[in-house]
């Protein structure tokens, strides 16, 4: 069942009949809340444009006398932030593509084929969803070390190459594809891989884009695993880079905030552009989950 669209004011007349004081109070409370939600970001942006001496003035000086854009230039030139950024982008995009492939294939397999052990395999996959990463981190690290993947892009991407949540999401979607459609293609002599790529994938665009959003977001934010496998600066991703910057130059607040802002920007842009998909993806998964 698809999530109901959000913009249905008439279907949900709600509690407050019309304007009046109740409504005004609601706006004020929601407005204060919204300001509190955005304040940390404003503080970050403001601090990133200050001199070191201006950071801790009382009262807080929201707009510095002179905007120090060179904090950004210095931070990006003197520290390999651009490099971390590219690593993050590469890892997040690779992991997302891998997941789109493995999860849609496995979801299709579990939804549309009958073979011995299918339900057992699907059940096992679902059960892995509740294993906390911390509970398997030691052997996982040993496996990756024995493969020679510590400090390599392999180690950062391949172990994250599939997800139980993704398989579940794709299977639920693929159950809705009519069997007749697939059988018709078989009668026409299409091979199974061709049916998958030519019919099933194009019909799954919405589910695939939801999955892509989730996987990209999780992996852009990923920290615990890269912390272990990327010990060399060459392979560090942005979250690791920021944590490292924080622990080594943590008192250079303007530059630290500049770096944080740069790190935040791509996700913020993706979110603002795709926010309807973001929220629908979340809604869909929560209702189905």
């Amino acid at each position: 069942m698809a999530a109901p669209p959000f913009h249905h004011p008439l279907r949900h007349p709600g509690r407050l009949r019309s304007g009046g004081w109740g409504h005004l109070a609601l706006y004020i409370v929601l407005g204060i809340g919204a300001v509190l939600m955005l304040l940390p970001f404003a503080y970050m942006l403001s601090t990133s444009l200050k001199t070191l001496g201006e950071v801790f003035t009382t009262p807080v000086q929201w707009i510095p006398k002179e905007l120090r854009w060179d904090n950004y230039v210095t931070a990006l030139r003197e520290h390999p932030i651009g490099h971390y950024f590219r690593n993050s982008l590469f890892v997040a995009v690779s992991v997302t593509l891998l997941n789109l492939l493995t999860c849609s294939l496995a979801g299709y397999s579990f939804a549309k084929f009958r073979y011995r052990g299918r339900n057992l395999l699907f059940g096992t996959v679902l059960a892995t969803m509740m294993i906390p990463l911390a509970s398997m981190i030691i052997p996982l690290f040993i496996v990756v070390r024995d493969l020679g993947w510590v400090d390599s892009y392999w180690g950062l991407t391949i172990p994250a190459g599939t997800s139980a949540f993704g398989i579940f999401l794709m299977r639920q979607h693929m159950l809705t594809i009519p069997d007749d459609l697939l059988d018709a293609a078989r009668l026409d002599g299409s091979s199974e891989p061709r049916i998958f790529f030519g019919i099933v994938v194009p019909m799954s665009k919405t589910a695939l884009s939801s999955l892509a959003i989730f996987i990209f977001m999780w992996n852009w934010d990923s920290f615990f695993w890269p912390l272990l496998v990327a010990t060399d600066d060459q392979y560090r991703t942005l979250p690791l880079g920021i944590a490292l910057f924080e622990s080594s130059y943590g008192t250079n607040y303007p530059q630290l905030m500049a770096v944080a802002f740069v790190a935040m920007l791509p996700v913020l842009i993706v979110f603002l552009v795709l926010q309807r998909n973001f929220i629908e993806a979340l809604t869909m998964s929560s209702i189905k989950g």
Partner: protein
Amino acid sequence: MQTTQTAELRAGPQHAQGRRQFRLTHLQKRNLWGFAFAVPALCLFALFSIYPIARTFFLSFFDYSVVDPPRPVGLENYQQILGDPRFHTSLFNSFRYVIFTYIPVWILALLLALALNTRIKARAIFRTIYFVPVVMSWVVVSVIWKLIFHRNGLLNTMFLSPVGIGPQNWLTDLQLAPDAIVILSIWKEVGFFMVVFLAGLQNIPSDFTEAARVDGSSSLQVFRYITLPLLQPTILFSTVIGLVTGLQIFIPQFVMTQGGPVDATLVLTLDIYQTAFVFLDGGKASAMSVVLFFIIAVVTLVQFRLYRSRAYG
């Protein structure tokens, strides 16, 4: 289509029999393909999930320094963590974190969802603003909040000093450090649950609430006797997601306090990480991992049971 039909007509009965045989093997072939489609994901799971978790259980009965080969010690690791005050602290801190963070988060998120499920204007803008922290990276927000909690940072200068409260050492005070991380987490998490509750509320047919309204029920009665019961699956879902993610929290403690001061913000996952990769006691860390695994498993299974009994009972 056309060609198959004509071919069938031309070949007659003999060919039809050959075709039936062909179709049988064809079905087998198809399902073999079906299985093959699952193989890439299954291989990844086997190597990077199933084997590691099984190995964790195994290693929890060994003395293992991550570097040297494991040496069997029976239940010693479990006896050790049972009597280890540090482990008790991290267990306590994790549960404290979950309760102090998620109970306010759930209440605030539900109130926000109720407020945004009305006819007010600009609801889309409010929803977007409250959701922004959710999509931000934990590391980035931890770095920002570390500055906010600074002795001369935003919280002390803008909010506390005007009401006459002197500057507090939020991240180095034994009492305040856990609360500081809780405050950050409430801010970060509330938007997620708001959207979940909003979806749940919009799944409730408006006829129900309308009918109750017409019958003269007050807003509070509608909420208590109609909205809340119908929202139960959503509430259950939120409880599990909150507990499961909250018990695995790691980044803010790692970035902002490193578990300190004096283990005040040492949570389970951070304890496991440090025990394994800083103190190189893989056996003990494995035993702790097994405990974490069972806590999460119990939480998930209890939810599953509740869900079932609500659905069919």
